[in-house]
């Protein structure tokens, strides 16, 4: 029983990342009808926002301290981050320590800006072209974004530790009398992603803006005829989707040290998630994201890999193939959206 729950928990963090990326993909597809192959790159840029912030916070100046000497007897150079000299050593150190959560503040405006530029500058011109063209141009864009990141940050993964208070392992099952050790940061990530998903749904459900967007998703033309500038609202939705991908990335940085191709790795799986959940269905994307994450974690248990070797590597694709062939609309796809 403990093992079973542990596997579910293990699947949750990856599942959260899948769900967030798939949610963004679905938002873009549902509103603009564009298949965005550059969404993984947005996830990756989000992760690199965390790296950037921690680099910025660690910018330091060097002082030669005559009181301390290194092992050769020379005076020691002491590096002090500017933050520490501004806010005092303790406050400064804790700001640096909390750089990943702080990066969220940077990520939201940066990602929304990137989203706006992307939509207005490029995607706008592809509304009326074939899906194949959309895939191709965003695929090209993904390569470009990836290479830019590689140019500035190098090809190696960059370690980005979570705040010290959130490192380590907690026993999440203590309250119900079970032994379930689980890394604290992953719990944080899961709660964070639930929060984001909740916020997106609430935004769509309870605001006038969200209502208009939902109406536009159902029937764009009629909403346009009612005198509402639906294009502008869809552009903003694109920016929001980009921000969701970025937020998924920024908090994922401590779990998986960011490297320039992490976006592509996640993109392939997220597309599978979107298709399994049903193209254009937001709850479907979230559900399928968590489901496939948990399924993957179950397939990685020793029991599963000994009975069916390699099942952990192919389970998601296998599920996708079966779902696509038996339920073409996906788990929760609406009727008439991209059927054939």
């Amino acid at each position, binding site marked *: 029983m403990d093992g079973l729950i542990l596997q579910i928990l293990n699947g949750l963090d990856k599942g959260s990342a899948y769900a967030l990326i798939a949610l963004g993909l679905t938002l873009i597809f549902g509103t603009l009808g564009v298949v965005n192959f550059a969404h993984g790159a947005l996830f990756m840029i989000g992760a690199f926002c965390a790296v950037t912030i921690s680099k910025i916070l660690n910018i330091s100046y060097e002082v030669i301290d005559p009181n301390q000497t290194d092992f050769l007897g020379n005076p020691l150079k002491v590096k002090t981050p500017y933050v520490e000299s501004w806010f005092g050593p303790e406050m400064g150190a804790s700001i640096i320590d909390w750089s990943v959560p702080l990066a969220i503040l940077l990520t939201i405006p940066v990602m929304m800006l990137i989203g706006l530029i992307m939509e207005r500058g*490029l995607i706008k011109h592809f509304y009326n072209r074939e899906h194949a063209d959309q895939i191709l141009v965003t695929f090209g864009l993904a390569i470009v974004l990836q290479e830019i990141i590689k140019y500035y940050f190098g090809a190696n993964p960059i370690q980005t530790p979570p705040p010290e208070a959130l490192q380590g392992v907690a026993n999440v099952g203590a309250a119900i009398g079970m032994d379930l050790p689980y890394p604290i940061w992953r719990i944080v990530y899961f709660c964070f992603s639930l929060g984001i998903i909740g916020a997106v749904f609430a935004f769509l459900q309870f605001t006038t803006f969200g209502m208009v967007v939902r109406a536009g998703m159902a029937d764009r033309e009629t909403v346009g005829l009612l005198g509402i500038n639906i294009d502008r609202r869809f552009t903003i939705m694109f920016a929001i989707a980009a921000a969701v991908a970025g937020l998924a990335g920024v908090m994922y940085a401590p779990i998986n040290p960011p490297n320039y191709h992490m976006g592509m790795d996640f993109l392939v799986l997220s597309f599978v998630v979107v298709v399994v959940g049903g193209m254009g269905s937001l709850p479907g994307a979230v559900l399928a994201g968590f489901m496939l994450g948990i399924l993957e974690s179950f397939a990685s248990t020793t029991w599963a890999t000994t009975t069916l070797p390699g099942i952990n*590597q192919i389970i998601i694709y296998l599920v996708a193939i079966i779902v696509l062939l038996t339920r073409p609309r996906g788990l929760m796809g609406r009727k008439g959206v991209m059927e054939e």
Partner: protein
Amino acid sequence: MLGLNNKDTKLLIVVAVLTLLAPFILNPFPAGSAMAQFNAGYPDLMQRFVIFGIFAIGFNILFGLTGYLSFGHAAFLGIGSYAAVWIFKLFTYNVVPAIALAVIMAGLFSVIIGYVSLRRSGIYFSILTLAFAQMSFALAYSVLSNPKFNLTNGETGLQVYADDLQMFHREGLPDLPHLFGLSMRSTYNLDIGAWSFSFNAGYYLCAVVLMLVFYLSIRIFRSPFGLMLRAIKSNQTRMSYTGLNPRPHTLAAFVISGMYAGLAGGLMAAMDPLAGAERMQWTASGEVVLMTILGGTGTLIGPVLGAGFIKYFENIFSKINDSILHEWFAFLPDGLENFMVFIVHPFVGKGWHLTLGILFMLVVIFLPGGLVEGGQRIGKWIKNRGKAKDSGATTEPAE
């Protein structure tokens, strides 16, 4: 000639001449000169030009004619490579059976994968092929290389070892892939003055195969079957209303292009007898998509051009480093020179993928017909300019 009309015959002859004279054409700079690094006429690179050309021609039969965008074609390339290396390991180093088996195996797999994937179209088809290719990659990389049943040799890649069976291997035959005794590595170097040209047996085998499959692709493009495939691209519903079932045709196109990929994989193994799983990864599938689009989708010569273009830049562009850039811009004043080097630096050397990505986006946005369309437009522009000069101020009649 050969059942082709005048224009196609000309095209075939041009391709034949270009491939046969490639060692000359690709080595325009004397060896040892400063420009020698732009020479692409060494066997390894020439083989890659041709092999990826074959791969892209095959991909174009599927994508260019039917419009089905497969993101998993590299799987067939990998399967072809594995099949060929197994022939080398078990039977003989002769490349003919190896390549034949590579084509057959890739064909079999593409029948299965195609039959399943083609039940859906559009983006679903892309994702299904992607899923199959990633599955094959994962299987080849880890699962099929366990000690009990080692089919792919995992991360190391499948290669031929000294203690392998090689039933039909005889004394006197080269210990490398060969064509009835002619080693694929045997190269004849011709020195004319400062120039040095190398003629490689392996390259010429690939070149002959390229000409054959290029001819085949022309025939497919011009056949009733090719027309049927174009009908699928333009309007599948209308096609089925006229009483034709599109699915067998798409499946046939898929299998043909899968066999082309297998042929390319077999040739790759024949040039260098090893096969690795990374050939099946989806980035490799993405590369052939790039080649085809860049060269010109749905055109005959486009994919070959695109493959040559990408492989040339991958090998030559990536060699340009800062000192070469400084040499280039040496004529500028110092400050400006450094500035130019700074500007160009991210796009060359290790960053050539950035150039490729930007170029690819520009092609998709502005030139959906790829390099071929670009060439045609320039040709038309020159022609029209010439005409305008001849005819002076006469007005063109309305069309």
